[in-house]
């Protein structure tokens, strides 16, 4: 692997870490499997891209992307809590609707952001080459999101949110509406995912309605990988594991794509297949380990 491909995977790992933090929030903290993210990632890209093309500055565009993501999360939360639609189904419904909405926002299935001033241009420092600047900015964003999330999850609201995923009956008996917690949590999660989408669009110079496919699976794979490497004993560790998991996952993908399996050469379109296999492996390793221990005992 060349240095540039390595830096590329670091860059990808860091920007998608923001998305993984969002997935961690729903999947682990709230225990609410949320597939909306497959639609919110391109939503973030679409909103950022469209606004930039209309002359908005790149930072405000990202803020609006987060707002749009939060709104999408709100819809899923509303379907699941107020209309009592099963969480998985509720998120699939929103995701499906977002496909059309994203095309509406962009006016077509994809946008090119050539010659637009991105946050990377705005933050450019002459001394730092671009291939270092981008990952550094992504590191700052992912680290910042982790920090804010760490703090948030230790406030009263954060405690109630964590309790909602752990023991909803107990949380209700402590006077907290679990419905409201789900609404807040899913919105926050999708705001993060949309932010990731906006950042990806700015760094790659385009937004595409199909760029969200497989987001949830990649997110899950990263969360699970991270947990098995970093552990999940505390909130601080869990958020760190999301970032580490994202890095390891993107790295594994690059490695996998650079190998030739027999006569078959893997291409980027095989990514989703690799991810799916990876998730199955990650999910079954704890079970296999337990069985091994059984046999030895």
């Amino acid at each position: 692997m060349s240095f540039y491909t390595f830096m590329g995977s670091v860059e990808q790992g860091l920007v998608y870490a923001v998305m993984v933090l969002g997935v961690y929030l729903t999947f682990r903290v709230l225990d609410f499997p949320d597939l909306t993210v497959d639609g919110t990632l391109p939503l973030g890209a679409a909103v950022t891209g469209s606004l930039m093309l209309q002359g908005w500055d790149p930072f405000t565009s990202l803020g609006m992307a987060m707002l749009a993501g939060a709104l999408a999360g709100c819809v899923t939360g509303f379907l699941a809590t107020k209309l009592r639609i099963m969480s998985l189904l509720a998120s699939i419904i929103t995701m499906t609707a977002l496909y059309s909405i994203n095309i509406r926002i962009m006016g077509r299935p994809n946008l090119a952001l050539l010659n637009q001033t991105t946050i990377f241009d705005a933050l450019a420092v002459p001394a730092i080459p671009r291939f270092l600047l981008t990952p550094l900015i992504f590191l700052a964003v992912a680290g910042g999101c982790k920090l804010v999330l760490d703090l948030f999850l230790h406030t009263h609201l954060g405690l109630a949110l964590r309790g909602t995923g752990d023991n909803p009956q107990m949380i209700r008996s402590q006077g907290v509406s679990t419905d409201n917690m789900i609404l807040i949590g899913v919105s926050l999660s999708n705001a993060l995912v949309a932010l990731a989408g906006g950042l990806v669009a700015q760094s790659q110079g385009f937004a595409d309605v199909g760029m969200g496919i497989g987001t949830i699976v990649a997110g899950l794979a990263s969360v699970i990988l991270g947990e098995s490497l970093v552990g999940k004993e505390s909130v601080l560790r869990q958020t760190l594991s999301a970032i580490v998991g994202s890095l390891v996952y993107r790295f594994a993908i690059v490695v996998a794509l650079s190998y030739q399996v027999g006569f078959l050469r893997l291409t980027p379109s095989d990514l989703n297949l690799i991810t799916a296999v990876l998730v199955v492996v990650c999910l079954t390793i704890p079970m296999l380990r337990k069985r091994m221990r059984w046999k030895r005992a």
Partner: protein
Amino acid sequence: MLQITNLRKVFNEGSINEMVAIRSINCLVEKGDFITVIGSNGAGKSTLLNLVAGTFTPNEGDIFISGERVTHWPEHRRAAYIGRVFQNPLSGTCATMTIEENFALAGNRGKKPGLRWGVTRRDHKAFQEKIRLLGLGLEYRLKDRVGLLSGGQRQSLTLLMATLQRPRILLLDEHTAALDPPTAAQVLKLTQELIQEMGLTSIMVTHNMRHALELGNRLVMMHGGKIILDVAGEEKRRLTVQDLLNEFAKLKGDAVADDKMLLI
């Protein structure tokens, strides 16, 4: 304090699984009452507590707390008035959160959770003092996850949490049933002390007739979704286990012999 009028709860109404859990209950709980509730399996005891707490809404009838009609209040809104300990020792706490975080949740019961810091240094000290009273050594483990603790330890914590903010009504549903006898005795003693010291209005469901007789100032016996015996004060003090057994015999004839009730 708590008034229940013409309460009726039917599960799966209109289907073949229809189950009338609460037939018709009228009950006035005075301030400071400590009621023990007994009754055979399926008598409707847990359902009654769930109706009071708002976990279920009744099909008919009303519930008033301090004169306020709370019949249709959602559970989380009613929680401002109610402290609860469940039968399952795992139900009352969040396993993945630390002892102090669980206490912070309980300390905030009934208030909107905001963006204030969850456990301040002052909270930590205050929780430590409370937990020290348990004498279980848990005051040094406030940063441990609750999932690491035993059922008895968790149930003791749940009890403290339920009374951390003075509740208008304390609901206990067989809260010692899942514990081994020495631990159960300890938790029961703590229950009695807390209720006495704070003068709490409490309802405690139990299958142990001795406990039902020894604790509290009022005893209620339920059967088939109805209250069939309600004695208080001097009359309750004179009641014996034999009296209760006779009541049960009247209801069921010989079936009493294999009833779980016979935990004396």
